[in-house]
């Protein structure tokens, strides 16, 4: 059946609407003039929406309205703005070129019995986020800027009954913040927390507009802590920067550090939106005391990444594929610039990652490149690829490079940190790897799954023998102090100061890891 455009106030649909009960939830209805319609034909729109609004309690009477813009055929176009809360709705986004039968009940059926072809047209439409099977704690946002019609918000959420109002409120608030008046926002939500929704929407707005405004969610009080240079870094848990579901509970597994990764764990076309996700995670997700680290991208992109993380109390920056001290300087210069602008004082540590032969050769220069380089790490997957071989469990191919990193770090007085162990199912293999790592002199390693944390901690931790030996040394030190002696001795053997210092470190670590009671001295009897 042909659908013809008519004068705006007298269209068939308008007549029907006048005669049938107007839904309570409908505030107003506007129709395009024919002139506007002709102008619109020149523009394009890729989506049409079908909204079914149920009215009131009792048996819901579905009343269908839709709006679309037709490229090829004249039609009545209705712009619908629903300001009040609708009681229920469904949305259907059409795909370009497909046909759809739309049966609307009661008064509308005679208008739309036949197939309707909706031609795709172009507009400012952007998408951010993730959806689909297996996606949890995230959302997918489709944002379309329009030039009139007000704000149309479509929320599909598995938590709509509990947080539907909250989601709408947040989106409305953000759109107002960015001064966007005419748009369609469609959110497909899989239980995303507020910081995630805010990140996804802001990323969409930035994508669609040229704004440089930032919508900052409140910084949790729990996230306002600093870390020290020589803090324990046995484990650092990598978290893909665009996968919020892995961030929410990361801290409960008690890694020493978490790494919000903007580099290899994020697909190239998602790197922009990942910045907002990481920024909001630094502000709004509690990592329960883990050191908050971000691995930035290489090169210029990485320097730009810093704008999204430095102002938000990140504790440490990982610098991937570092091959020169100049790269460290460039990052540090940018950090200083940002901190000056934001008036921040707290330290931000840098951990360069050696991932190539050139990086290994320059390890010493990199380790001493700046005062805030706290540790030096090695990334073996990229390193072995760079030298033209592959990684093996025995690690012979990387033996020299690992030693060079350890030596460079120790010489610079910073921590050497080993690479990740990739097989998350092999706990014994991990344990052996940690033992080798510890034997080479590393102070910690990366991990890619929370299951690895316990094994790494337990294996890097002092053994009972090491603790017993350290207790003897510290006890001997205490005795020497009491007697006013300058030399610490155990039996006939003199104990050098560095050995005493190492013993104290071992004791402190053992106490911290609950392997030794902090009041051990009270009951200690030397054997």
């Amino acid at each position: 059946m042909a659908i013809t455009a008519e004068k705006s106030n007298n269209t068939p649909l308008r007549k029907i609407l006048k005669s049938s009960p107007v839904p309570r939830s409908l505030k107003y209805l506007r129709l395009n003039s024919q002139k506007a319609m002709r102008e619109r034909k020149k523009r394009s729109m890729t989506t049409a929406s079908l909204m079914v609004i149920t009215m009131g309690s009792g048996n819901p009477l579905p009343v269908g309205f839709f709006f679309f813009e037709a490229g090829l055929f004249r039609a009545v176009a209705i712009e619908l703005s629903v300001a009040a809360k609708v009681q229920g709705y469904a949305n259907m986004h059409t795909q370009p070129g497909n046909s759809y039968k739309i049966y609307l009940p009661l008064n509308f059926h005679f208008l739309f019995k036949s197939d309707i072809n909706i031609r795709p047209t172009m507009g400012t439409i952007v998408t951010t986020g993730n959806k689909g099977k297996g996606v949890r704690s995230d959302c997918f946002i489709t944002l379309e800027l329009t030039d009139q019609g007000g704000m149309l918000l479509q929320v599909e959420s598995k938590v709509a009954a509990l947080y539907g109002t909250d989601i709408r409120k947040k989106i409305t608030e953000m759109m107002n913040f960015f001064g966007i008046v005419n748009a369609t926002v469609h959110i497909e939500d899989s239980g995303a927390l507020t910081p995630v929704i805010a990140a996804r929407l802001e990323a969409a707005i930035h994508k669609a507009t040229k704004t440089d405004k930032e919508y900052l969610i409140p910084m949790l009080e729990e996230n306002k802590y600093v870390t020290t240079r020589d803090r324990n870094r046995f484990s650092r848990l990598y978290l893909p920067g665009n996968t919020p579901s892995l961030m929410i509970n990361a801290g409960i597994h008690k890694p020493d550090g978490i790494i919000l990764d903007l580099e290899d764990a994020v697909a190239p076309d998602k790197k922009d939106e990942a910045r907002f996700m990481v920024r909001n995670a630094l502000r709004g997700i509690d990592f329960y005391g883990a050191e908050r680290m971000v691995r930035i991208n290489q090169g210029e992109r990485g320097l730009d990444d810093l704008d999204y993380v430095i102002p938000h109390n990140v504790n440490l920056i990982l610098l991937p594929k570092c091959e020169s001290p100049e790269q460290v300087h460039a990052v540090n210069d940018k950090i200083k610039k940002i901190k000056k602008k934001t008036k921040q004082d707290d330290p931000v540590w840098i951990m360069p990652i050696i991932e190539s032969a050139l990086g290994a050769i320059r390890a010493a220069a990199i380790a001493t490149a700046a005062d805030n380089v706290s540790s030096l790490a090695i990334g073996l997957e990229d390193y072995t690829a760079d030298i033209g071989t592959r990684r093996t469990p025995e690690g012979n191919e990387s033996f020299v490079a690992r030693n060079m990193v350890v030596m460079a770090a120790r010489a610079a007085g910073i921590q050497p940190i080993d690479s990740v162990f990739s097989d998350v199912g092999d706990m014994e293999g991990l344990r052996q790897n940690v033992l080798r790592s510890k034997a080479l002199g590393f102070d910690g390693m990366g991990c890619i799954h929370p299951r690895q944390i316990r094994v790494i901690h337990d294996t890097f931790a002092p053994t009972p023998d090491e603790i017993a030996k350290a207790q003897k040394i510290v006890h001997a030190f205490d005795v020497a102090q009491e007697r006013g002696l300058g030399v610490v001795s155990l039996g006939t053997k003199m104990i050098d100061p560095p050995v005493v210092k190492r013993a104290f470190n071992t004791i402190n670590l053992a106490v911290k890891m609950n392997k030794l009671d902090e009041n051990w001295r009270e009951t200690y009897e030397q054997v």
Partner: protein
Amino acid sequence: MSKYDKLEKNAAGRVVPTVINGRPAIPFQGIGKYKPTGYKAAPKIVSCADFPEDGNKVVPNLKEALIKAGLRDGMTISTHHHFRNGDLVAGQIFDIAHEMGVKDLMWFPSASFPCHEPMTKYLDDGTINRIEGSMNGALGRFTSEGKMHGLGILRSHGGRYQSVQDGEVHIDIAVIAAPTADPFGNCNGVNGPTACGLLGFALADAQYADKVIVVTDNLIPFPCLPWQIHGNYVDYVVVTDQLGIPEKIVSGTTEITKSPDRLLLAEWSAQFCDEAGLIHDGFSFQAGAGGTALSIGIYFADILRERGWKARFARGGSNKYLVKMLEEGLVEYILDGQTFDLEGVRSMRENPTHTWTSPFTSYNYHGKGNFASLIDIVILGATEVDVNFNANVVTHSDGYLLHGIGGFQNCLFGKTVILPIPLFRDRIPVIRDEVTTLCGPGELIDVIVTERGIAINPRRTDLIEKMKNSKLPIRPIEELKAEAEKICGVPEKPKFSDEIVAVVKWVDGTVLDSIRRVIS
């Protein structure tokens, strides 16, 4: 007949109807407070003269069996759920009823699964008036939207047995799908191509129904041993091509969890049990077949192995991990309510100390004791709990019915009940001020383990005392709730109409809570 009438507030403070589907009902009076009077129900007396002398009760097909059984409007038809999501029989019954123009049947399953979703069309057209049992997934959604003609009733496994025994539910026709049967009607679940382990959920049906039809895809000559169901209860035997889809009969959850968060819950639960002295030589436990529960079982096994102890018995859901513990000598007996995988089926067949149980022995509250109260440690799940330790297992926080009660209520009588549950699921906080639907009273729930802390019911002063020096994060439940709301936001309450669409019964047949229609 109106769906329900005469609302009253019960002892749990919930408003419930006292007339349901035209019959009187008793509101919940407190745990152990309601004492039944009268005698058990009994089926009609019959005579061998009316049954084939050669013991061959085989009829050509299910339709003929149903016709011979006298299928007509308003009857109660029962089925069991040992085939879980692989069941092919229940749907056929109502296809036939629909074809015959029969209306207003009451379907009385021991549980329902997603494969039963096509039943919604029969609920819609009035072939089925209502379901008493469980309403899962799409059936639950259908019920929550107020579309069922009669009032739904949810019962636990033990409650189902109790309702039949007490005469609250009269089964007109029981259809028992049996993996192996003989022409006399003896049958079991351990043998045959669609072996499912046991037929315990069909016991009440066999004992009390007016007419009993056994459907099998593996007819063997008399005798069919072991006879988990006696042919002396059976009227007709039907042979069909396939009872169920074997790969769907086996549960998809008989693997330990790989989720690090769930593993943490499992580890803390086991550690709690150990530190509180709940695990000892000769103890007993029931851990279910979800990923987290299975993992707890693994931790128990490690502790037993390390200390040279044995569990006297474990109640199942049997699965490969429990079977391994049995065959390793860490558990002396498995008392099995349903098998969840093929290892469970094999073990039941081969191991004399792996024996089947029924809701009568394990869970029936109107009996001379049951096994549930003998168990030292019970591990259960929940969709919600509240600050008074009450639990919900049937609706989610959006108010939609999505699960059945299963053995949950019955297991609450174990000596220590532990619920390892995440603090929130997909933004939905699990700890609420008040549960949406009350399924388990808080007096019976002892410990809630979440990934952010463990709450001990204040009534369990013994556990609080034992755990006072523990390094586990013991925290008040109110604090855990506040943390969840800080992370997720304070949730709105779902909107319900005044209309009641289903009720939850307690183990003693009293009405514990009402489920109202969701306003979408």
